């Protein structure tokens, strides 16, 4: 797998103004693999994805993305929480088209080959029905499909998605997860998807990368999501609880943290019964 990995991250360290975000992060994603990037808020998921895209420069380590030989970027990226202007004069179809040639200079000229590629991608993400509607008028789930098509239309070997399931209703979550699994098999695209809740992804993930305490562990979900493995990662005891096929990681020592914070703040302590 070492040579053929779609993504290989080794010894990655990133810090912002002296604060360590990631430390010695190491994992690999094989071609076509569906990989979930899980971790609590502030664990560095977004920073890790941005580093892979090249938007954040690491202090140390190596990130190798399997090049597709075309010379172009082989990473597709769907950023977190994009807020789209409701009035922007772009159809869903135009957004996918910009995924293909958005960085090129000049006004787009008519091209049948390009239109066919865009149309195929729209069909692949199940957006045929709303391809000609204004992007700002679509629902959150529909917009997410279009953003996936925007990222995939250049056929990257690796697709990164930052919290694509946040702010979606339960049904849209299920549809997007199923769609991504199908697309990764259809196009042999490796997927690295960040989420704070792993449960919707358990039926589809081949691998999990769990981030906490600046570090990462990766492997099969049932190897990683275990009390002793995650306790070692967090650096204190956490509980992994399984309820009706769902997994809950109880890593919070929030009650203690909040009591400690209150104790440091005498004004508020006085008001708490």
């Amino acid at each position: 797998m070492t040579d053929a990995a779609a993504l290989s991250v080794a010894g990655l360290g990133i810090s912002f103004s002296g604060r360590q975000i990631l430390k010695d992060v190491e994992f690999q994603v094989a071609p076509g693999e569906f990989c979930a990037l899980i971790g609590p808020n502030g664990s560095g998921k977004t920073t890790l994805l941005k580093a892979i895209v090249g938007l954040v420069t690491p202090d140390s380590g190596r990130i190798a993305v399997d090049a597709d030989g075309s010379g172009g970027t082989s990473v597709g990226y769907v950023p977190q929480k994009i807020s789209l202007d409701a009035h922007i004069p772009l159809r869903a179809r135009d957004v996918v088209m910009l995924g293909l040639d958005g960085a090129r200079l000049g006004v787009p000229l008519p091209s049948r080959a390009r239109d066919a590629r865009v149309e195929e991608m729209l069909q692949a993400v199940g957006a045929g029905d709303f391809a000609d509607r204004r992007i700002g008028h679509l629902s959150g789930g529909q917009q997410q499909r279009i953003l996936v098509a925007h990222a995939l239309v250049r056929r990257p070997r690796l697709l990164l998605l930052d919290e694509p399931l946040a702010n979606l209703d339960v049904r849209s979550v299920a549809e997007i997860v199923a769609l991504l699994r199908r697309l990764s098999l259809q196009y042999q695209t490796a997927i690295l998807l960040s989420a704070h809740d792993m449960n919707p992804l358990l039926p589809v993930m081949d691998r999990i990368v769990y981030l906490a305490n600046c570090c990462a562990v990766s492997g099969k979900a049932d190897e990683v999501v275990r009390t002793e493995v995650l306790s070692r990662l967090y650096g204190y005891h956490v509980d992994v609880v399984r309820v009706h096929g769902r997994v809950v990681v109880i890593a919070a020592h929030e009650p203690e943290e909040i009591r400690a914070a209150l104790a440091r703040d005498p004004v508020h302590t006085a008001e708490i019964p």
Partner: protein
Amino acid sequence: MFASFMANAWIVATMVAIVAGIVGFFVVLRRAAFAAHVLPLGAFPGAAAASVLGGNELLGIVAFSALGVLGISQLQRWERREVATALWLAVALALGTLFLSMTRRYSQGVYALLFGEVFGIRSALIAPVAVLGAIAITATLVLFRPLLLDSLSPELGEAAGTGRGRIELAFLGVLALCTATALPVVGALMVFSLLVGPASAARFLSDRPLVALTLSVVLSLATVWSAIALSYLSNWPVGFFVGVLGGVCYATGRLRQRGGPVPAH
């Protein structure tokens, strides 16, 4: 209204309308309306400086537009976008006040620079306005797709490698060129209405970017031509009609919006 002394007015105003329609489209899409207000207003002290030094007015405007671009983009590294923009306006207006205090024969000129002087356009202005306008249009069309992608989402633009800082700097440059083109004609206050009014209406009328851009130019031309004609007939200022018709454009666009009102979600 079509007498020979009016020819310059029609020619230059037409060029300005085309430039403003194209650049204004991205002003609205990129939420840069405040910069579109500040760059022209911050460029007028350049004309005042030129008057004090006895230099070329258009050159003064170009110089201060360029200073505005550099000043705003440098301040943006440390400050939020609108704070950076406002800080530049404060500095520019301070300089403008100083320059104006040094010259007495300028009060009429100030009025023209703020509110425009369409009927007094000299033939000598046609060539420079045409050149500056052509550069602004070419630059906007060359950057069309990166600007569109960055307007859709700066994150997506950055991921595609368009470079957020470079795009912003390039766009401010285009806006400065448009300012220099339009300021001597429609005035610093009216550049702004021409940049925002037609473009804000055009995005309601089509959901295809190139069609919306074309409509923005068409509405801009209609605004400027109607304003000149109405001003000629009524003797009311051109600026009044440019501003009012800009508002009319927006209202019409809003009412004729394609696909009905935006659904809440």
